[in-house]
């Protein structure tokens, strides 16, 4: 069992006392965080205040699905009264006046927030190196990236600084770090989880999702946060399912699993990952799954489409950061225009600036049709192709990344190379369908390898169930370098 489910059981049964658990919890967290830089801020005081209340009223613990469980929140999601930076200098000092819907729901279910998790600035990056506050180190190998953009959340889970975390996924930002750190991360269907209160990167791609040890732990978190929110007009009125039950009862027997051939091109992944993939397929077959070929023909265009649509929306969403109503404003300026331009230029890191520039260009007069509009067109094709694929199969199975965690600093100077590491994740965001990344093995360096299931819209129960079934068939033991 994952640590979330285990701790929940421990608290509920009384075997573990809440106050006792939290007594030296934060000193352990701080020691590990020093090495990893996973958390930008630790909410020790608030967390302990809340923890004490639980022991005082043991009865409430039983009724709260996430009672007293320590959860880390990516520095992109609002918690009322807490600082929120998006890992950016431009928001230094900003305190959220209201909680996001997801943090409200977690809090209502009893969760205790451990701290703000480090991430790539404004969630833009694949390695958690694009941050003003230092990169996150991978708990499995301290000279490697934890993946991005939710690197801090992944590392926090892997290194046991919490029993679960929230991340955001726009082009793979939950799934890639999950794969790199050897944990499980789920990107829900677009519209399954409310985005209200989460700092927007690319509005039509962003989703908030759970990151934890395994599928069942993720299911506990998803159960709390999923469901229509009237504050988010893109959240859909689709009934949630019993995700916890799905993890326990799902069987792979007879399940049709498609392998999209575009994801299995020769040389598309490192040889060790290739080898691991083949053995995973054998495991799936052994469990009774029926492996089929599938095809998402426009896959090769995914990155091009993503880097036009996502950057355009990002340029738009970041237009509000002007130093007037919140954030860090420059002291010296010649005029209002100068104030805004300087504030933005000094406050944003270079990756953010790069994407804003690209996005602004894609929307600009004379280029809109060729770039943004055409990208949306190809995107709609991708979406149709996924929906069509699911007419033949129940799930798709693919790798998560072309390689395991790369070294810190290895790709920072080559943006295009960095973008290409998203090849197996971006199309899923473009189509809006859900996907889960879960650990399927190690390479010869003991670095975790992730596998990915993709499901039809709103079939998160299937995703979690399938990942849980795979875990039962091939248990995974994380190897930490701590």
């Amino acid at each position, binding site marked *: 069992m994952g640590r979330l489910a285990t701790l929940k059981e421990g608290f509920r049964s009384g075997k573990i006392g809440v106050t006792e658990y939290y007594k030296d919890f934060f000193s352990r967290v701080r020691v590990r965080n020093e090495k990893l830089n996973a958390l930008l801020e630790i909410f020790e005081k608030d967390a302990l205040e809340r923890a004490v209340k639980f022991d005082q009223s043991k009865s409430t613990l039983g009724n709260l699905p996430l009672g007293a469980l320590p959860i880390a929140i990516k520095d992109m*999601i*609002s918690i009322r009264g807490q600082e*929120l930076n*998006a890992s950016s200098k431009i*928001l230094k000092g*900003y305190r*959220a*006046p*209201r909680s*996001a819907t997801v943090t409200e729901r977690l809090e209502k279910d009893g969760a205790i927030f451990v701290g703000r998790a480090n991430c790539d600035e404004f969630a833009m990056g694949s390695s958690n190196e694009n941050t003003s506050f230092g990169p996150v180190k991978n708990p499995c190998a301290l000279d490697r990236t934890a993946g991005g953009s939710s690197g801090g959340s992944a590392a926090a889970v892997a290194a046991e600084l919490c029993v679960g975390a929230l991340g955001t996924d726009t082009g793979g930002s939950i799934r890639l770090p999950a794969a790199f750190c050897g944990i499980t991360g789920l990107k829900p269907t677009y519209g399954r989880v409310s*985005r*209200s*209160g*989460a*700092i*927007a990167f*690319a*509005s*039509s791609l962003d989703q908030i999702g759970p990151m934890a040890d395994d599928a069942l732990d993720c299911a506990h978190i998803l159960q709390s946060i999923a469901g229509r929110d*009237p*504050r*988010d*007009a*893109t959240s859909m009125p689709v009934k949630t399912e019993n995700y916890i039950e799905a993890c326990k009862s799902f069987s792979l027997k007879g399940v049709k699993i498609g392998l999209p051939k575009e994801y299995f091109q020769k040389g598309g992944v490192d040889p060790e990952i290739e080898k691991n993939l083949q053995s995973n397929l054998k495991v799936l077959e052994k469990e009774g799954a029926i492996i089929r070929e599938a095809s998402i023909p426009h896959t090769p265009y995914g990155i091009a489409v993503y880097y036009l649509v996502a950057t*355009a*929306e990002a*340029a*738009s969403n*970041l*237009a*509000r950061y*002007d130093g*007037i*109503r*919140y954030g860090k404003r420059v002291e010296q300026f010649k005029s*209002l*225009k100068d104030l*805004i331009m300087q504030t933005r230029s000094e406050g944003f890191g270079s990756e953010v600036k790069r994407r804003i520039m690209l996005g*602004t260009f894609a*929307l*600009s*007069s004379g280029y*809109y049709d060729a770039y*943004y509009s055409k990208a949306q067109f190809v995107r709609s094709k991708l979406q149709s192709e996924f929906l069509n694929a699911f007419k033949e199969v129940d799930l798709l199975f693919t790798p998560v990344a072309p390689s395991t965690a790369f070294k810190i600093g290895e790709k920072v100077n080559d943006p295009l190379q960095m973008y290409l590491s998203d090849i197996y994740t971006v199309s899923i965001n473009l189509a809006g369908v859900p996907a889960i990344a879960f650990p399927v093995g190690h390479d010869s360096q003991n670095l975790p390898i992730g596998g990915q299931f993709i499901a039809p819209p709103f079939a998160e129960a299937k995703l979690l169930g399938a990942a849980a079934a795979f875990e039962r068939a091939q248990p995974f033991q994380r190897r930490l370098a701590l």
Partner: protein
Amino acid sequence: MSMSLETVLKTYEPVMGLEVHAQLKTKTKIMSGATNIFGEAPNTAVSTIDTGMPGALPVLNREAVTMAVKTALALECEIQPVSVFSRKHYFYPDLPKGYQISQYDRPYALNGGVTFYLNGEKRRIGLIRIHMEEDAGKNLHFDDRGISLVDLNRSSVPLIEIVSQPDLRSPDEAVAYLKALRLVLRYLDVCEGNLEEGNFRCDANVSLRRHGASKFGTRVELKNINSFRNLERAVTFEMIRQYQVLESGGSVVQETRLWDASQNQSHSMRSKEEAADYRYMPEPDLLPLQLSNQTVSKMKADLPERPIEKMERFIKDYHRTPYDAEVLTASKALADYYEDVAKATGDDQLSSTFIQTNVLAKIANVETDFATFYPDSKALIDLLKLIQGGTLSLNLAKEVFEHMLESKQSAEKIVSEKGLSQVSDDKALLAAIEEVIQGNPRQLAELKSGKDKLFGFFMGQCQKALKGKGHPARLKELLEQKLKS
């Protein structure tokens, strides 16, 4: 150089269109649940959404959509089954998100028109489109201190932008169109329609076209028009300005000019080298707006009678002139008032005259005052019935009316208390006539010798003797008879 419009019109035809922004009277804003209210202390009617806080998302106000669609239906537009919201990007302190949520190439309503009467003639001005958008906040300037202060109460207040075809051909027509448009909005109770308060705003596009030419001239945009008077003045000024430019061999520069009411002229705004690039993008946080046939049909069926329809009905069924009809439909409240009275008394003319002459003189605001005005239609009906029944002459009725205003009492009560009923009894009338004829022998002789004008003198003297209560028609009849003999 003093220049007249006539001179301009000899050579050129003005081609004008108006872009009107109307604030909708919803309780909350269009994209945010904060209160939609005017005049409150700054930044007290705001939310995370309309202040552009990180993570805040817009949600479309259903009532704003309903009001917008009703307006478009009343303006004969084609409601689009699918319309799309777009982000219009520019940096400005009163625009907290760095973009305005508007509708760009997929507005919810197309075409349509506004019909009205101008100098007795019916005219229809076409519309190009109407779209929904959110208003921006307000900047308060303190240039002496080198600062501006931003109030976001108005941020995200619902607006509809109504764009007319360039069908307007004179300043008077522009004013008449704007008034007619405003009336439609007021009849639907979707907008206050107050130019001075800024909940109803108007920009004008003006160009001149040489008579006989097929191409339109370059158009200039005029802003800061905050009254009907200023609209008339601004477009007139612009027509003359463009005439002078063209006649002196120059060409009109495409630009935006601000009207300065205090100086009675317009100034060019800082010209930009190129038009702003707003980088329009479909709004991903909102779904495309779907308006089904069913929804639209129901709204259309529920539409109240429109001003032009009411006007034409008054012309046809109540035999009013276009002028009368326009006056009597100046507000829905007034129109209902007239109609109540005309129906109950059966006398369209009397009702119209009495209301116009006496009631309207006491009404400051035709939109709001009828709610509390006395005599209400029922009380006025009673008064007019007394005229019809012979109890009161028109003059006496006016007197009674004044008393009603003051005392809030019914006509009958006043008449009986003050003994104001008119004298219709022949005996009394003849007695007065006799008295006056006897008392004015010289005038009688002059009248008999041909000075017909003196008839009025005798009428006046008789009324005086009767303390003004003589039944005018009967008195005239009897006096004529008496004088013939």
